[in-house]
């Protein structure tokens, strides 16, 4: 039926979008159907595109047949495909979780329960968010990226405000404003790049080469904007309150996926568009990443709220993604395949593990009706599977095998040691230990039986299973990552078509 495999990239956007429209009907069956449509469409698109990219290399799809420089082009390479795939996996897990988290979605509960607003609006907002994420991963056009980035920011902030607390409303507002500021800087950069290069297609711009100060100013503006959206230290202040206040499935997709959307664009800019130029800028990104790793981890250790701890952990783990930039280009014109594979596998493993942790934390706070690390004392005995899912996710985050995090750490360390960059190697090792420290702080409380058990209501099985499935996927990534890494080598490193 579909001859050109690139058509699938359109489906990746359209399926969740149509799903969102279906879910807007608000009836329980519509909510389920919309989520199912989003999951099936995204999963199918990721799978088919992966096969096509493996067979044919990067795909370019001119929308309506009009290519660059005037038309809008979609671009699918190995990096796009793995991000689509991990989004499909995490998204499906979070959607499944959401069908049980907001009550049983029965007609009456959607209409009347206090969480009814969450039940009714989470699905459409999240599907809109999903569509914009998928769109970002397949866009080869800068302005298109801007529009999708804006939709992503709006729907993400709205998801935060679905939680019925003042905290969530204020955190969502702050998130929205930061996001808008970031988008403005990005749009200004796009405008300047267009004036300098005469096109919006990333591939064409990269071929033309960027000369003079204007493109660098544009890149700098866009980078600051995207760094704010990715919560790069020291622009991370908005993230912990927002991610902690959102409803649990929302927290999972915000921490696992949404920040990766803007990170994805940063990679497109610094790897595909600018090809590792301006090494000082890459080093600066790396230093900020180091700051994020240390500062985020230290603050995570000081939290009393479980979800805030996980949110600070996101700030810290995003640091690794920025340490990636200086490691990618050991020397001018060089390219470290290990760093590339390690960095992206880290992003994927973090997405799976962090989603699992947030979902597990959601089950724990659901069970004890409080978001406090001391309140989950002894929960390991009540919700053993949730405890196990949280533990596996945390271990993957810290790079303890077998897990995707371990494979990523091995690759990143190898890249650093090969380059003689011992500073980065030791920093990443220390970062792993800091991660362990805060993960184990939670596990220790969960195992502690000395305190009297707080009030407890059992969490629905579906909540437990969704977290477990994602945690197991994070582990599986550490057992077999070969195909993924081969896929990643297609198109990356300034070799876009």
């Amino acid at each position, binding site marked *: 039926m579909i001859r050109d495999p690139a058509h699938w990239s359109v489906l990746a956007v359209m399926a969740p979008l149509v799903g969102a429209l279906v879910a807007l009907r608000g009836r329980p069956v519509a909510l389920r159907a919309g989520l199912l449509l989003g999951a099936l469409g995204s999963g199918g698109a990721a799978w088919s595109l992966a096969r096509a990219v493996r067979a044919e290399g990067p795909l370019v799809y001119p929308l309506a047949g009009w290519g660059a420089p005037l038309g809008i082009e979609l671009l699918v390479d190995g990096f796009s495909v793995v991000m689509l795939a991990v989004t499909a996996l995490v998204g499906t897990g979070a959607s499944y979780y959401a069908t049980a988290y907001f009550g049983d979605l029965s007609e009456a509960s959607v209409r009347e329960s206090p969480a009814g607003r969450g039940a009714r609006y989470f699905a459409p907002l999240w599907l809109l968010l999903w569509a914009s994420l998928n769109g970002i991963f397949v866009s080869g056009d800068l302005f298109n990226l801007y529009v999708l980035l804006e939709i992503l920011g709006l729907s993400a902030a709205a998801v935060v405000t679905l939680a019925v607390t003042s905290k969530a409303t204020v955190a969502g507002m702050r998130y929205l404003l930061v996001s808008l500021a970031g988008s403005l800087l990005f749009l200004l950069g796009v405008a300047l790049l267009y004036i300098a290069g005469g096109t919006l297609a990333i591939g064409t711009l990269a071929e033309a080469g960027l000369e003079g100060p204007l493109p660098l100013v544009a890149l700098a503006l866009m980078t600051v904007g995207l760094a704010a959206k990715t919560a790069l230290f020291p622009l991370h202040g908005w993230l912990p309150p927002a991610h902690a206040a959102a409803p649990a499935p929302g927290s999972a997709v915000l921490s696992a996926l949404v920040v990766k959307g803007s990170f994805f664009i940063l990679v497109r800019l610094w790897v595909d568009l600018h090809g590792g130029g301006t090494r000082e800028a890459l080093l600066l990104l790396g230093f900020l990443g180091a700051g994020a790793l240390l500062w985020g981890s230290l603050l995570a250790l000081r939290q009393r709220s479980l979800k805030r701890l996980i949110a600070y952990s996101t700030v810290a783990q995003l640091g690794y993604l920025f340490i990636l930039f200086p490691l990618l280009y050991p020397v001018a014109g060089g390219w470290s395949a290990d760093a590339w594979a390690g960095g992206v596998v880290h992003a994927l493993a973090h997405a799976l593990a962090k989603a699992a942790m947030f979902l597990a934390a959601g089950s724990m706070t659901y069970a004890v009706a409080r978001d406090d690390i001391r309140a989950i004392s002894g929960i390991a005995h009540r919700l053993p599977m949730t405890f196990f899912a949280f533990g596996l996710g945390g271990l993957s985050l810290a790079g303890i*095998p077998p897990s995707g995090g*371990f494979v990523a750490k091995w690759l990143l360390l190898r890249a650093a040691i090969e380059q003689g960059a011992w500073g980065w190697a030791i920093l990443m090792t220390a970062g792993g230990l800091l991660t362990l420290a805060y993960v184990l702080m939670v596990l220790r409380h969960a195992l502690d039986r000395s305190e009297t058990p707080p009030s407890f209501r059992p969490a629905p099985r579906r909540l437990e299973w969704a977290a477990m499935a994602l945690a197991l996927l994070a582990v599986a990534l550490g057992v077999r990552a070969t195909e993924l890494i081969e896929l990643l080598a297609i198109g990356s490193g300034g070799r876009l078509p």
Partner: protein
Amino acid sequence: MSYILAWEALPLAIVLSSFVPGIAIMFLGEEDRRLRVGLNIAGATAKLALVAVMLVGVAAGREYAWRLEVLPGLELSLVGDALALLFVALSAVLWFVTTIYAIGYLEGSPNRRRFFAFFSLCVTATTGLAMAGDLFTFVLFYEALTWTTYPLVVHRGTPEAIRAGRTYLVYTFASGALLVLGAVWFQVETGTVAFAPGGVLDPEVAADSAGRFVLLFGVLLAGVSVKAAFFPVHGWLPIAMVAPAPVSALLHAVAVVKAGAFGVTRLLHSLYGIEVAWQLGVALPVALLAAFTIVYGSVRALGQDDLKRLLAYSTVSQLSYIALGVALLAPVAQVGGLVHLVHQGLMKITLFFCAGMLAETLGVKKISEMRGIAQRMPLTMLAFSVAALGMIGIPPVAGFLSKWYLGMGAIQAGAPWVVGVLLASSLLNAAYFLPVIRTAYLDDPEGTFDDGTGRRGLEADWRLLVPAIVTVLLALGSGVLGGFGWSPLGWTEFIVDRGAL
């Protein structure tokens, strides 16, 4: 997928034989006792049978290797060779008896599902580590062993247990991070992570950049030395005693500490090669460190009143025999060191089984409470005494053979000071074990030992007693039948003679 069914996949099957029950148990309900016990026993039996098949095969010269590419150029590699089998066979046998012991020991206590799940996963990590064909796989299972053991150490969930678990993790994860760093560095320096008999390091390359390789050795050694409980990073071991008795037994005989000792062996023999290690001057410090730890652990064991603490310090000491033996440049000493991996395991697990029985049956945890206890629990104390005498090195128990070969090898290697260390350690062993035996047999009991159940017949639950008797008989048999090819000693000689170390 036909290769999965081939003989080469036997190592994978051995790993899975405990992994699958472990995962399955996690998904069972807490009350599915019969199914859980069935899964445990089935897994343990299957592992024993598979290991037996592999033993026969390896003796006949067969090679078993299973590989799965994890990353381009990095494999999960499980190899069933003679050296791996020594450790795997030990784990399989001791897992079986410890499972029975644990079922009896934990009868009726809460959270058995979690306990047995992680118990199986812990053994999975141990067997995987034993059969690791390269450093990558070794590191993977080495770290997995750390986190699978943690829920066992803190099983009771008391503040004391939680604290002990924290200490355990601080030590093991910090060293694990160094091991990962060292492993990646090793790959960058040499281009490989494979284990090979005689090492993979080119002597000339090593000599050219000696400083770097010495430093690298230091990082790797720091990585494995925590689990090997070398002084001064042994501190976690006595604290981890808070775990239930079957866990302590497994930890001290097979799982964690042996992983460290085995890691030292792999580092010296399969990565650097013992000759290159001596040429670089890194083997002698290992031997000296081990020797010091032997004496230090024994001295600390003196005067302990808590039986399990005494046994823990004894482990610190005995464990270093292995490292001392394999660090010496004499095949006979290497045989002595390696065989102690098995001998110490058999003797120490007996001691812990007995200590657990005393605590579980009579609530006796201190040596001062053991006056005349042999009258009440004669079989337990007989097993205890035989194992303790073996630790001291009295023939015909297995420990004697280890010390004999170590001593002979030391003289062969031109390191007569080792004999002095062995003598001093044996005297110290006697000094802390004999008073326990004397208290148990010769002192008059202060009152009657009453467990309150009015139990008649056996002195303890048979599921606790039988494993202890089996292991002590194995320790005795390994000593008496040391001359036969299938004994641990015979097998170790087979390894060393074949150049498979």
